[in-house]
């Protein structure tokens, strides 16, 4: 652990955050663990006619209806087949519960606040706006996702207008 020494002066106030990592296409992403309620195996999703196209449909979560978002579509990635490792992560953001479908869920990692860097301004706009920051850990790039944005800002303002 060499990098933390660089920030020794700040380490007293350096928060340790936990992130759940998941994979989409070839990348690894992270979501703050406090926002994740549970991870489900893929179950049948009932499509909703007339819904926005990034909404895959709804599932029955022990009697509650939960909307599932197509994360690939949202990130501008090509659609892929459902496999054995496909998971639905149930997350709670801004008082609404939604499911996001991901290729697989890996682990929970501990990150120090100081290890998180702001995202380099590359890539297409569609996916860039959901990125909170990046973190280089064990020579692997971890992309931290801003969940609130995933559910689309326009959507929020639309909702607020109702």
């Amino acid at each position: 652990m060499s990098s933390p020494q660089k920030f020794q002066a700040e380490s007293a106030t350096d928060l340790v955050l936990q992130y759940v990592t998941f994979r989409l296409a070839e990348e690894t992403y992270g979501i703050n663990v406090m926002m994740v309620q549970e991870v489900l195996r893929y179950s049948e999703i009932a499509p909703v006619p007339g819904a926005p196209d990034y909404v895959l449909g709804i599932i029955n979560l022990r009697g509650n209806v939960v909307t599932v978002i197509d994360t690939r579509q949202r990130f501008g990635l090509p659609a892929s087949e459902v496999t054995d490792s496909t998971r639905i992560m149930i997350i709670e953001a801004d008082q609404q519960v939604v499911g996001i479908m991901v290729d697989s869920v890996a682990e929970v990692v501990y990150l120090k606040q100081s290890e998180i860097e702001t995202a380099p301004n590359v890539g297409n706009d569609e996916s860039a706006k959901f990125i909170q920051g990046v973190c280089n850990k064990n020579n692997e790039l971890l992309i931290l996702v801003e969940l609130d944005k995933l559910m689309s800002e326009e959507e929020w303002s639309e909702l607020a207008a109702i």
Partner: protein
Amino acid sequence: MSLDADQDILQDFLVEAGEILELLSEQLVDLEQSPNDPDLLNAIFRGFHTVKGGAGFLQITPLVECCHNAENVFDTLRKNQRQVTPELMDTVLSALDAVNEMFETVRSDEMPGDADPALIEALAYYAQPEGEETGSPPNEESASQEVGSANEAVEAADGDITDAEFESLLNALSPEDRAAMEKEAQAPQAAEPATSDEITEDEFDALLDELHGKGKGPGVAPASKPETSTAASDEITEDEFDALLDQLHGKGKGPGVVKSEAKPQAKPEAKPEAKPASKAVATSKPAAAPPAVAAKPPARKEAVADTTVRVDTSRLDEIMNMVGELVLVRNRLVRLGSDSADAELAKAVGNLDVVTADLQSSVMKTRMQPIKKVFGRFPRIIRDLSRSMKKEMVLEMIGEDTDLDKNLVEALADPLVHLVRNSADHGIEMPDVREKNGKDRVGKVILSAEQEGDHILLTIADDGAGMDPEVLKRKAVEKGQLDQDAADRLTDQEAFNLIFAAGLTTKEVASDVSGRGVGMDVVKTKISQLNGTLNVWSELGKGSKIIIKVPLTLAIMPTLMIKLQDQTFALPLVNVNEIFQLDVSRANKIDGHEVIIIRDRTLPLFYLRRWLVRDPAKREISKEEMKEAHVVVVAIGNQQVGFVVDDLIGQEEVVIKPLGTMLHGTPGLAGATITGDGRIALILDIPGLLNHYTGRR
């Protein structure tokens, strides 16, 4: 400025005073019908007094002032020192409006502004005995000023009224009143120690002596009864004390009344007083049994504390949700149980079935409220309208005790207000016109509610002018909503339904009451949101009748489950008229739309699969399927359309689950539900569906 009152106390006050204010508006209108009813006067007096007390405790001075003045008016009235006149009623009603307005401000946690000084002055004027006024309301200086100063003193003392302040207040009023008012003065004074602590026996005795000295003979003997009970318990609560005071105030009614009241008081802690309570609630109409009235309010007060619990509606919703869950699990178990040969299992499942059904209906009952909650505001509306439009009319209400779901009660309020206003404005004619047509001068609006199976029927009828179908057709053609040919073909019944179209009005000039032609459209939308239906009946010269049919509850809905490809959808059963199999390959085409002819009626035909299946490849319907298509005929208002579906599953009662915020408002969908096998079915909103996918209604 926000209130810094204790939130719990504030909430209690809001709930309690809210109920009293609702009751007051009813009682005030009743009072106009029977102006000399002493019990009614007392009840109103007490109503204002209680609100004042609560407001005083929370130091909401403007509210206290307004209530106090209104209370004074009724004090004068109940002593027969003044008669009820329409002008007085106007003032008092506007005082109630002012109080309601302040109350709303308090509800939003802010300190209300001072009441209109002119209103307070007018109230103060009417509070003086007739013939002894010190002037007319506008230029009446001295009295109102003195009342004002007394009120200031009240403010200074944080709402507690001391003797001295009351003296000055009394001086401000007429001296003749004094003897009587002194009793009043004693009330707050003595109640004050009661709130902080208990009142001692000695104090109480002294007070009784004082009151007896002024009161007449009959009051003494029965009054000693409560005294002994007090001695036994050694302390007196505020409620009991209030009750006692009420008793003494009501002494004019003779010992019978007092006795009936002394009974519940004799053992205040021993019994929860279930009996007087139920009686009091059952006969809540003040005019019903005059001698019993004096006894009611105190008994009711105790009963509320003893036998009922206030529950947050969100908690009730939660319970309702969980029961809904249970129903679903039961459905699933019943399905599994029917497949199994195990007799024990079948027994257990059968038991569960019964218990769940009972639980479901009792939870449902907790959410039920009498429709009186909505009806209660109509006497006032009719009164105000008849005064402002110079019409004469009475309102008759039937079936006020009909219970329905709380959410429905709230949701029905606006549409009903609108319909009643319409009846009063458009329906009832001017008195002269009515006389000329050989009718009673006084028009009648009848509002009734009754339960019919799992539905509630609400009827708004009037004996007014009725509607002319020809005029309606002409208007619709003028407005370009119909062409002449279509208008000519309409039956009278269909023509009446034109009133629900947006923008149509029969009034030449819109008034502030109605006539802009938007209301009925809103009413219809609202009712169909509640899964209800509307029917109009009218006869020219005889009157009109509008019948609303809504389900008893919104939480559980009977549906027809259908299949499109392999996805399940639920159609609300209220809309479904009939189902049949038909060879639709030979459907006729009119104007590019497919139609079928059933029993000489032409129905537009729609393929739900084309709308609701996401994968375009699966949307098309093969010729073979068309040969034996299932057609569900649904009705929206008076219109019928046919839906072609892939498969019919059957009828099922479902619990509506809202779609998440993200999908909220998706066109054509009312929500989702979970079927017996744990899968999801989308519940269709048929009007929304047609609107969205065909671009018309």
